[in-house]
């Protein structure tokens, strides 16, 4: 495995070198950085040309200039040395400085978009594969065709101009009409009926449950004024914790052997108690505190699962850990929403922002700022992930269908394994393997999409840095974009390869 990783690292480094070289040459070919000065009629024209030529080394041949640039860029590999040198912009600013202001927002966007797209896409893909040729499957197929055919920039503008304004207006006076509730209920009912499937009667019952659940919840929330000040509250957290425990048990082991359920429930109770007693710690934490709490949760989950698992220790540990993590997530969302009123006041009730990656000059503490980032992420993420969701769901569906037709799935069934074990242990694991490689490619696409999304939503991110640089024929900032995206793509590719090898023992050997 070590040799395997070392080889991957080597290949990645070579790819990145060639990639940056290619980008450097292309950027040099793409325009003359002195263009605007040459048309200048000012008196100090010659001086300014000379100064910029000096600044950007324009007298050096492109290939040599690349290696000079590379020499500076290589210093970035030395951690914490602060000697990173990616050249200067035409205005003489350090590119590393420009980058430091831009990279955070973009990476956040890409990370959230990737996680969301993988989650939604894979879930939709699995469900549609299991319900092949059902109405749900056809609807999902149609939707994915529309998603991949939708021009991102156009859809983003649409979201910005229509959805954001409408939602903000609605939130000014949030009342759900019966008509809206019925419409939403129909959608949730059809979706739930499609997911559960089975006989006509069972589908009808599922539809009813979905309809009442969707429409009823909406009307209830509206009647209780929830939309005025949304939140989960300790009771909501408790309900979600217990529901995760039951749901995860159903998914991981079923209820035949109760120990797994008990372990998950104990973990949920621990989470509920922690939520009530950790108020001081969670009042205004930092990311490190949250990370520490996450690790603690996992450790407690392992302990509980191990102690209570009995004959199904492995499943109990998994169920307990995931119950803990989901409960923790509910707690975080709860705390974040507690900042809602404060935040809504700060933005005059326009809670769905359409410009920038954060509200300027707003400081609502950790939770307020988190809420601020989240609302700013909402629309760009929604616009950005459509194509990826479609790609992942189609790919997962195809992969799952192929795996479900494999002989070893038939063997698993012939052993008398229940359907849950067949799907999770035998089909899903194998179907997942090709998805790992897809992630790496998709991120490159998302980074390209980020250029468009940032333009539409006015983010000061890497995409904006890049488009501005191209417009102004400013080679070094444009180059910085390629360095960061190239490095991200190469790293992800490597991680995907390693994950592939981890998931598929046949690759490990070679």
């Amino acid at each position: 495995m070590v040799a395997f990783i070392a080889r991957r690292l080597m290949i990645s480094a070579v790819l990145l070198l060639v990639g940056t070289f290619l980008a450097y040459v292309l950027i040099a070919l793409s325009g003359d950085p002195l263009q605007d000065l040459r048309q200048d009629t000012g008196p100090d024209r010659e001086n300014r040309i000379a100064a910029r030529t000096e600044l950007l080394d324009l007298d050096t041949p492109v290939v040599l200039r690349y290696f000079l640039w590379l020499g500076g860029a290589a210093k970035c590999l030395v951690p914490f040395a602060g000697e990173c040198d990616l050249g200067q912009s035409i205005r003489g600013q350090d590119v590393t400085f420009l980058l430091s202001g831009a990279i955070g927002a973009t990476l956040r966007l890409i990370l959230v978009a990737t996680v969301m797209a993988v989650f939604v896409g894979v879930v939709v893909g699995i469900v549609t594969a299991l319900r092949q040729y059902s109405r749900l499957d056809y609807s999902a197929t149609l939707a994915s065709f529309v998603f991949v055919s939708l021009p991102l920039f156009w859809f983003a503008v649409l979201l910005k101009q229509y959805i954001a304004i409408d939602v903000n207006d609605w939130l000014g006076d949030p009342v759900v009409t019966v008509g809206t509730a019925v419409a939403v209920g129909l959608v949730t009912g059809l979706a739930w009926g499609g997911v559960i499937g089975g006989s006509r009667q069972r589908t009808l019952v599922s539809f009813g449950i979905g309809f009442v659940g969707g429409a009823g919840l909406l009307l209830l929330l509206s009647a209780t004024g929830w939309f005025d000040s949304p939140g989960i509250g300790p009771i909501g957290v408790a309900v979600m914790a217990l529901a995760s425990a039951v749901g995860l048990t159903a998914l991981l082991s079923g209820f035949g052997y109760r120990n797994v359920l008990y372990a998950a429930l104990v973990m949920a109770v621990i989470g509920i108690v922690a939520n009530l007693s950790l108020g001081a710690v969670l009042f205004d934490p930092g990311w490190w505190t949250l990370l520490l709490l996450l690790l603690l949760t996992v450790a407690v989950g392992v302990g509980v699962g191990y102690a209570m698992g009995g004959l199904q220790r492995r499943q109990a540990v998994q169920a307990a850990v995931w119950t803990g993590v989901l409960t923790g997530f509910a707690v975080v969302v709860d705390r974040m929403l507690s900042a809602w009123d404060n935040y809504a006041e700060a933005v005059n009730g326009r809670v769905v922002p359409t410009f920038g990656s954060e509200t300027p000059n707003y400081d609502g503490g950790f939770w307020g700022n988190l809420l601020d980032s989240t609302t700013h992420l909402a629309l760009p993420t929604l616009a950005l992930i459509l194509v990826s969701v479609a790609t992942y769901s189609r790919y997962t569906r195809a992969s799952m269908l192929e795996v479900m037709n494999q002989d070893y799935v038939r063997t698993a069934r012939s052993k008398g394994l229940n359907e849950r074990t067949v799907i999770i242990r035998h089909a899903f694991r194998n179907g997942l393997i090709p998805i790992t490689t897809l992630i790496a490619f998709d991120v490159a696409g998302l980074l390209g999409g980020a250029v468009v999304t940032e333009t539409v939503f006015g983010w000061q991110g890497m995409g904006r840095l890049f488009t501005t640089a191209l417009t102004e024929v400013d080679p070094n900032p444009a180059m910085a974009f390629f360095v960061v995206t190239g490095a991200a793509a190469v790293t992800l590719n490597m991680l995907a390869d390693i994950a592939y090898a981890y998931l598929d023992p046949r690759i490990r050997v070679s």
Partner: protein
Amino acid sequence: MSAPPPVSAQAQGMTVVARTQAQLVRRRFFRHRAAMSSLLLLVLILLLAVTSIGVGPIPGWWDKPYTGIGPVVDEGRPTLSVVPTFLGGDGLRWGEHPFGQENQGIDYFSLTMRGTQISVMIAFIVGLLGTFIGVAIGALAGYFRGWTETILMRLTDVIIILPLLALVAVLGRVAGNQGPVVLAVVIALFTWTGLARIVRGEFLSLREKEFIEAARAVGTPGHRIIRKHILPNTVGVIIVSATLAIAGAVLLETALSFLGFGVQPPDTSLGRLVSDYETSFATRPWLFWWPGVFILSIALTVNFIGDGLRDAFDPRQNKVRN
């Protein structure tokens, strides 16, 4: 398990199936409803775009030029109506300016048609040229192996890891100034990577097959084996990829033009139109809707056609269908 469906094919014998391969593909495609209706819609859109304003010196049936500035009538509202009178609409009406007028009074229907022409032309050039390059590189790498393969595939990897949109944007603006054809060629230089990988994969598996060994054994030269024996077996994959590449190219070019690194004035494209009139959204939303709807329709129909072709060439996916 002996799967029931192949029985009839088996009974007919392999030779019969081989002879009617093309017919089978055609039949399966014609039976694909989504693909057939998409094909019809696409042809209608293309006919509309080509015949209305004409091509080059040949005039079309629509007399308003896409460059003519004029008085703005009724705030430039579209005169097109499809809502019948008994439903409270204006009946079926084409009117003076079916898609409305833009800020300077240019007929927006003409402009949209012009944008469609340019966008579709670029998409087709990118699709075909990109396919050609992809097939050539994939075939060389897959057939000759060794150093050729290493270099070509590493080059492919390098281009794949860089965001395509950004890569094309770098050269796009320069190329855009040279006109849409040059722009299309430049885009095609970067969009062949996916197909090259697929074709190489097909070649790698095909070159191990007995009939290729046999051809080699009797001394058939390499280029002839590629052309006569391997390529015909990959034609399905190539056609499907080319179709999907065209859909991708429509979206890529429009996004590029939207960012300002694609088609440059005085030429226009559907993406350029969205970008130009994004700001008039609040006052004249139709200026934003028409080009978007056209991009979506073209991309969607081409994608559906691609899907139909894939089903037609690779019916294995439908084996379980009942």
